Every structure is written in structure tokens, then in C-alpha cells.
């Protein structure tokens, strides 16, 4: 379907701007017609609406360095769990640029092209889908977020209080068993009642949550805890009021279970990284002083005062604080924080190249016409994206929920069977039958269940830290074992991420020592990234270079100078051509071979004749191969290389390391898109990356892992940070995860063991023959024994070797 859509493009003022936008749109394909008026920025784009949508068009315009006029619509919806329905319906709608719905708050943030669709249409669309909407303000959202944070903080206090009260009650009852009757023991029922009531109220959210999923037919760990703690409490209250005679109260069991669960939740929430606030700080990358053209002169102002259309100047070494296009001059821009590529990229006014806020001008001088500022820059968009995605990461079914969920049915079944047995075959009164049924529910939920897993996680996190792994989410270990595909960024992850001299090849008949010395002398003055690589090489080889007699730097070509009567030139092939020097054919072929594998080859001339070449590349980390082999062999997962680099280089690296799949030449959002696709196909992918361009992909993946030397935003996005920057830590992470899982299962078993022996007693197995029913002493003993077992078992992780 052919669609004709109007836009207003921001930042264009010349025919050549339109050309570069046209280039970018062409690359997209499916754009049939593009007309624009450079004076007003008004544009009409005709495109194939079946293949692409407004989202893609705007992306292409932003890629060219410009932006379109847009409007933000904030709507409160009753989306609940169905956020994906709204997102899917709106994202491909003509006129919609972006749409995200927070599952937490139900707030939909929709960015539209006001010339393509109206707010009214959006609301109509949502109503047709059956959603209610209400317009809200940014201020309102901020207040909601604040309230959520306050709530979280309050909950944390409740956890601590619950634990203290619970443990007190357990000890209070427990000590009475060994004859230590603490103060007011005669009133222990009343004290138990009061404390258990308080703990129950403090944990009302957990109880409601647990019972809800039980009634929905899919019980989780919370369900068993909720069921057990409430029935125990209610039963004890009934006994206390004398409605059931001969029964016993178990208030300490009710408070104890909840207390220990609170402890576990407290541990987990302390581990979880506070996103959001730290991410906001990353906006600092685009804050600072900017030199902006005001009238005839450049004046220094704060970056927040710069507007779209202003012209700012950037000098060598300066950070670029705005998104824009180069309108004068040329230079080399270090975009490594975005792309991970270590070599600066040439940006010139002739091609109206776009530059991004947060990158650094390494050499040259450029004037940039501002096209996007503040919250519209690419950097700001990435930060916002990561923040939103992090808050809405899908939950997955935890190990404990799977195991305990099944147990819940078993316990309920046992309880019902017990009741039926005693009122029918057992021939007891209804009140006795109720007592037995309730004791089954009370005894089967062991107190340490709540800490059985968090304690293991906390100890393993500590151990992981010693292996150079920062774990920022309690679910990492469980997730690691579920991963069936590992995705890697190339530069900076599998490779060092900085150029390294791989080979120095003097031409035939050239003295190697002299060749090396000449290079080292001239490069001594170079500030180029490749120069730094060569200098490091000289240092490693122990060559003490003297100062060159003369030195001249020709941007884009190379460096020329003299030393000891020797004329030295080091630079690109273009420079060699300018010297009129021919490279011998067999050497030229060899050089092309290196190039096709993604290496940079620098030529050297001595006294105007070809003297050799230097091969510079981004070296593969020595441990990369070992890690890939481990993943394929031991874990048995697939591996995929996801990179922005060119296909040939990527394939060469993949072949060398034995990586299964290669996806090259991807932009940051393409990486994230690919990961989303893989996940929707059912892959549980872990992604390891380091750049700003990896941040979104890291957030989107099933398990996001960031390299420690990477960009701050990548680290904020990661659930795991490899702080020692060694890829082999991935192997350690897998081993630790296996240990953690083993201990988690053991702990759950330990937790149930002592209580399990009491189930027959609780069911009344000894009642007919010996007249023994479950008594509080038994329950308290079992509780203590299982607590101690679980704690000791968890501590053995510290002694395990990996």
C-alpha cells in the first residue's frame, strides 16, 4: 500500500542536507518519492506502507543527522499485562514514531509525527482495542515514580521488622523447649498472637500475591508460604479462643516463616541494582560548555542553552555535546563509545557528515550545525530506552517457584485427604479432623524456605566478586544455566578493542633494525591512534627512539619527517601514490589479503622508496577461543557474533574462534532488534558487549553482560559486569551458577526434610495407637533443625573450588 506522509524535518537549511537525507532514505528501500523544501523543512515522503512505517522513515532521517518535528502523548491506560498488544498495534501505525507502555504503571508514552496522525486517532485506536485511556502530565508520572520509590523503601523496613519479630518469636518458643522460659511466658499465646498479627499485616502483599496465583491455578513459592502462614494463624486463633479443644497454638510457625521469607526478600532487593538514577547521570556526557556562533563571534555558553539550528565549533580534543551535521572543516571523530570501533572516523563538511553528542573530536576542526539537543539526541534516546526496558524486563519462572509450586498441590491434597480420612474412616469428630488437616498445612511449609535460595545467591555473589564478576541481579545464576545461545559483540569484547601492531614487514633488502628505528623515531611525535599503537610496539621491543629532526603531519595521509639524513614517510596508500611510488605487486597482493581480514596496513617510505609495511589490527583476546570452546563443548549452547563491523572482518574472527553464526554491519538498534527477534523465536540469549551501541542489546537480551572497561551505559544495562575485563570470567560464572543451583536444590530439600518427617504425625498417624498429635515442640524443633541445616549448607559454597 502506497502511503503519502507529510513531515517537518528539523535542522535542514540547504540542498545538500536534503541530498544526505535522500541517501539515507534510499538505503532503507521502499521509499518511492521524497520531496522537501529546505527553507521550511516541510517534506512529503511516499513509501510502501506494507514494508516500512513512520518509525523506519524517522530512523533514517535521524541516521542522516537530522530530526523531525514530533509530539509526545502520555496516556494512562488500563493495559495491565497486555502492554504488548498496544505496542504492537501502534508501532507500525502510520504517523507513530515510538510507543512504549510501562507494565508497572500502565503509562503509555507515544511519540507521533503530528503531520501524520492526530492524538485523537491514537486514542480512538486504543479505545477500539478495548482500552480505557486518560491523558496525564509528565509531572504526574514523576509523582507516581516517586511514590513507587517511597513504597519500595517502606517495604524494605517492613522486611527487616518482620525478620526481627519472626526470629524473636521462634527463639521465644524454641528456648522454652530447653527449659528457658523467658519473660511473660504465661502469656505466650497472647504475645504470639500479637506478634504474628503484626508480621502478617507487614507481609500482606506477599500473602495476597501468593493466594492470587494459587487461585489462578499456578501456585508459586509465595503461595505455599501464604497458605501455610494464614492457616496456621487462623487455626491458632481458633484454638486460643477455645473453639477447638485440645489443640495447640503455632503462632511462632506463622511469624517464623514470614520472617525468614522477609530476610530472603531483603537480601534479594539489596542485590538488585538501582537503575534509573545512575542512568540519568550518563546525560552528563552531553553537558558542558559549548562555543556557539552568536552574530559574528563564537561565545561560550552552557550546552543546555544551545538550540536547534545554532552553529557550534569543536576543536581537536573537544567533546561534542550536541547532535548535528558538519558544516565547515573536517576532522577525525572518536565514536568508540558508541560503536566500539577504536579508529576515529573522518567527518567532513563536504559530505555533511552527522556527528553525535558524547563523541570526541580527536583531530581537526569542525563547525557543527545543531540538529538535536537535550532529550532528542541519540545518546539521550539510548539512555531513555535502556531505562524503560530495564524497568519492564519480563519475569521468568524461578527454580524455587517450579519446585515449590508442585509441592503446594501435594500439601493441599494431603490436607484434604487427612480431613476426609478422619471424618469418615478415622471416625473422629469434625473439630479433630480440622485440627489434623490444619496441622498438615502448618507443618509442611518449612521456615527456611524463604532464605533457601537468597542465601545461596548472596554467598555466590560474594564469591563471584572474587572472580571479577559483579552480579547486579539475584536471578543471574539461574538464568545463566537456562541460556542456550551466547551473543558476542566483536570489538572490545572478543578483541582488545584497541589497535595493536600485529606484524612489521620490511621490504626485501631493508635492514629490519634500521626500519624499526626509523618508524619509532617518526611516530614519537604522532598523536594518531595508529601512532599510539606503533609507539606501544616500540616500547615493547625496547627501542629507545630519538626525536626526529623534522616532523610534519598531513591529516588523512600520514606523517613525514627526517632523522639522521634519512627521509621517512609513514602513511596510507594514498600518500604513497602522492609520492609517485609503486608498491611491488606481490606485496600489494599480500596487503589486500590483510585488508580483507579487516586489518589496517600502513606503508613506510625511506628516502622516497618503498621500505615496508606495518599491519595493525584489533587483536583477538587470547582467552576468547577458550571461552567459545567452553560454551560449545561444556554448556552446549550456540554462539553468535553480532557486530557493527564489516562482514569480511567479522567472518574472519568467527572462523578463527569457531563461532556458529555471524551477523555483521549492524547499527546499534539493529543489534537490539536482532536480539528481540531471536528471543521471540524462543532463544534464551545472553549478550556480552561493551559499547553504548551494545547497551540496548544488553538490556533486550535474556541475560545482559557488560565488559568492565566498557562504556558506563553498557555497564548500567548489564545484569552482570565482568569487572576484571577477562572473558574467561564467563566460564567462572557458569561454574558458579552450577554450584549455586546445586545448593539451592539441596537447601530446599533440607528445608523440607525435618518437617517432612512430621507430616505423618500431623496427619494423625500416631493418634489412634499412641494418642500423639502434632505438638508445638515438634514443630519448633523441626524449624530450628532445618534452619541450621540450610545455613550451614549454604556456607559450604565458600569452600567450593572453581
Amino acid at each position, binding site marked *: 500500500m502506497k502511503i503519502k506522509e507529510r513531515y517537518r524535518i528539523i535542522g535542514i537549511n540547504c540542498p545538500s542536507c536534503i541530498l544526505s537525507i535522500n541517501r539515507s532514505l534510499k538505503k532503507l528501500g521502499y521509499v518511492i518519492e521524497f520531496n522537501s523544501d529546505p527553507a521550511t523543512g516541510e517534506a512529503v515522503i511516499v513509501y510502501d506502507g506494507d514494508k516500512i512505517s513512520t518509525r523506519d522513515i524517522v530512523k533514517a532521517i535521524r541516521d542522516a543527522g537530522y530530526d523531525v518535528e514530533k509530539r509526545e502523548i502520555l496516556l494512562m491506560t488500563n493495559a495491565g499485562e497486555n502492554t504488548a498488544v498496544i505496542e504492537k498495534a501502534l508501532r507500525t501505525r502510520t504517523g507513530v514514531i515510538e510507543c512504549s507502555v510501562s507494565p508497572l504503571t500502565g503509562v503509555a508514552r507515544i511519540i507521533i509525527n503530528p503531520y501524520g496522525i492526530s492524538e485523537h486517532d491514537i486514542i480512538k485506536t486504543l479505545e477500539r482495542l478495548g482500552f480505557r485511556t486518560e491523558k496525564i502530565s509528565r509531572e504526574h508520572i514523576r509523582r507516581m515514580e516517586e511514590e513507587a520509590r517511597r513504597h519500595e523503601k517502606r517495604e524494605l523496613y517492613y522486611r527487616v521488622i518482620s525478620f526481627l519479630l519472626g526470629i524473636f518469636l521462634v527463639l521465644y518458643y524454641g528456648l522454652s523447649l530447653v527449659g528457658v522460659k523467658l519473660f511473660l511466658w504465661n502469656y505466650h499465646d497472647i504475645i504470639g498472637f500479637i506478634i504474628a498479627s503484626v508480621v502478617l499485616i507487614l507481609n500482606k502483599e506477599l500473602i495476597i500475591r501468593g493466594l492470587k496465583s494459587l487461585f489462578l491455578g499456578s501456585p508459586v513459592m509465595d503461595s505455599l508460604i501464604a497458605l501455610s502462614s494464614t492457616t496456621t494463624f487462623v487455626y491458632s486463633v481458633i484454638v486460643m479462643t477455645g473453639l477447638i479443644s485440645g489443640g495447640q497454638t503455632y503462632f511462632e510457625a506463622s511469624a517464623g516463616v514470614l520472617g525468614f521469607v522477609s530476610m530472603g526478600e531483603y537480601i534479594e532487593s539489596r542485590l538488585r541494582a538501582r537503575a534509573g538514577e545512575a542512568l540519568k547521570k550518563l546525560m552528563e556526557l552531553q553537558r558542558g560548555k559549548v562555543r556557539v556562533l552568536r552574530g559574528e563571534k563564537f561565545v561560550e555558553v552552557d550546552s543546555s542553552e544551545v538550540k536547534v539550528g545554532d552553529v557550534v565549533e569543536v576543536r581537536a580534543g573537544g567533546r561534542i555535546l550536541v547532535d548535528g551535521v558538519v558544516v565547515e572543516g573536517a576532522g577525525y571523530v572518536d565514536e568508540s563509545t558508541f560503536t566500539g570501533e577504536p579508529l576515529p572516523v573522518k567527518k567532513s563538511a563536504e559530505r555533511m557528515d552527522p556527528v553525535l553528542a558524547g563523541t570526541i573530536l580527536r583531530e581537526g576542526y569542525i563547525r557543527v550545525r545543531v540538529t538535536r539537543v537535550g532529550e532528542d539526541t541519540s545518546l539521550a534516546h539510548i539512555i531513555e530506552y535502556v531505562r524503560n526496558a530495564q524497568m519492564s524486563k519480563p519475569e521468568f519462572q524461578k527454580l524455587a517457584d517450579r519446585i515449590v509450586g508442585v509441592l503446594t498441590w501435594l500439601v493441599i491434597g494431603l490436607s484434604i485427604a487427612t480431613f476426609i480420612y478422619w471424618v469418615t474412616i478415622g471416625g473422629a469428630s469434625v473439630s479433630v479432623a480440622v485440627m489434623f488437616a490444619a496441622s498438615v498445612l502448618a507443618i509442611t511449609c518449612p521456615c527456611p524456605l524463604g532464605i533457601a535460595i537468597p542465601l545461596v545467591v548472596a554467598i555466590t555473589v560474594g564469591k563471584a566478586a572474587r572472580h571479577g564478576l559483579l552480579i547486579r541481579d539475584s536471578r543471574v545464576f539461574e538464568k545463566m544455566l537456562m541460556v542456550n545461545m551466547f551473543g558476542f559483540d566483536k570489538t572490545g569484547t572478543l578483541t582488545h578493542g584497541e589497535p595493536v601492531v600485529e606484524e612489521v614487514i620490511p621490504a626485501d633488502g631493508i635492514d629490519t633494525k634500521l626500519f624499526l628505528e626509523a618508524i619509532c623515531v617518526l611516530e614519537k611525535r604522532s598523536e594518531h591512534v595508529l601512532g599510539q599503537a606503533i609507539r606501544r610496539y616500540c616500547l615493547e621491543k625496547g627501542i629507545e627512539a630519538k626525536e626526529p629532526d*623534522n616532523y610534519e603531519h598531513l*591529516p588523512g595521509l600520514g606523517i613525514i*619527517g627526517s632523522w639522521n639524513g634519512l627521509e621517512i614517510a609513514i602513511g596510507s596508500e594514498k600518500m604513497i601514490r*602522492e*609520492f609517485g*611510488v609503486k608498491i611491488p605487486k606481490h606485496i600489494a597482493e599480500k596487503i589486500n589479503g590483510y585488508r580483507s581480514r579487516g586489518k589496517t596496513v600502513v606503508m613506510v617510505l625511506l628516502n*622516497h622508496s618503498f621500505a615496508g609495511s606495518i599491519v595493525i589490527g584489533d587483536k583477538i583476546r587470547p582467552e576468547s577461543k577458550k571461552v567459545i570452546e567452553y560454551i560449545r563443548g561444556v554448556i552446549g549452547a550456540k554462539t553468535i557474533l553480532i557486530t557493527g563491523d564489516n562482514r569480511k572482518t567479522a567472518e574472519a574472527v568467527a572462523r578463527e574462534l569457531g563461532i556458529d553464526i555471524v551477523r555483521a554491519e549492524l547499527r546499534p538498534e539493529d543489534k537490539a532488534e536482532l536480539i528481540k527477534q531471536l528471543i521471540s523465536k524462543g532463544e534464551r540469549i545472553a549478550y556480552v558487549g561493551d559499547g553504548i551501541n551494545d547497551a540496548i542489546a544488553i538490556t533486550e537480551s535474556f541475560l545482559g553482560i557488560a565488559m568492565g572497561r566498557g562504556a558506563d551505559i553498557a555497564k548500567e544495562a548489564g545484569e552482570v559486569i565482568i569487572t576484571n575485563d577477562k572473558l574467561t570470567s564467563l566460564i567462572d560464572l557458569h561454574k558458579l551458577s552450577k554450584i549455586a543451583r546445586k545448593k539451592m536444590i539441596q537447601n530446599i530439600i533440607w528445608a523440607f526434610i525435618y518437617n517432612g518427617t512430621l507430616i505423618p504425625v500431623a496427619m494423625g498417624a500416631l493418634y489412634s495407637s499412641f494418642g500423639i498429635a502434632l505438638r508445638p515442640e515438634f514443630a519448633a524443633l523441626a524449624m530450628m533443625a532445618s534452619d541450621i541445616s540450610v545455613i550451614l549448607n549454604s556456607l559450604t559454597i565458600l569452600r567450593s573450588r572453581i
Partner: protein
Amino acid sequence: MKEPWRGISVVVDPVCGMNVDPKKTPYKTLYKGKIYYFCSQHCKRMFEENPELYLSRGPQIEM
């Protein structure tokens, strides 16, 4: 002009004939193994488009 850096503090722009300090000007280019310095981006571009013209005819002040 064989070794423009050697002991010379001022060179001539081959396009417009102005004196240029090679240490200061950012406008320079390499042609046939020699470095040429210019007073401006304009002169540099003119030279790069047709270097032989300027080298054979010599610097001229444009009117």
C-alpha cells in the same frame, strides 16, 4: 622547495603567492612527494583540483 621544512620559516602559497608559515597553517597537501602549504582552504582546494597548472604557471595573485 625540495625539503620545505629544512630551515625555512616561511614558504609561498603556490596558488595565491602569499607567505605562509608551515608551522602554523593547517592547510597543507602532498603532491609528488612534496608538501605544499596554503593560506586557506580555498587555495588548497584549487591546488588539489589542478596541481600541475599552479606548479607550471607559478603563484598568481587573484584579482
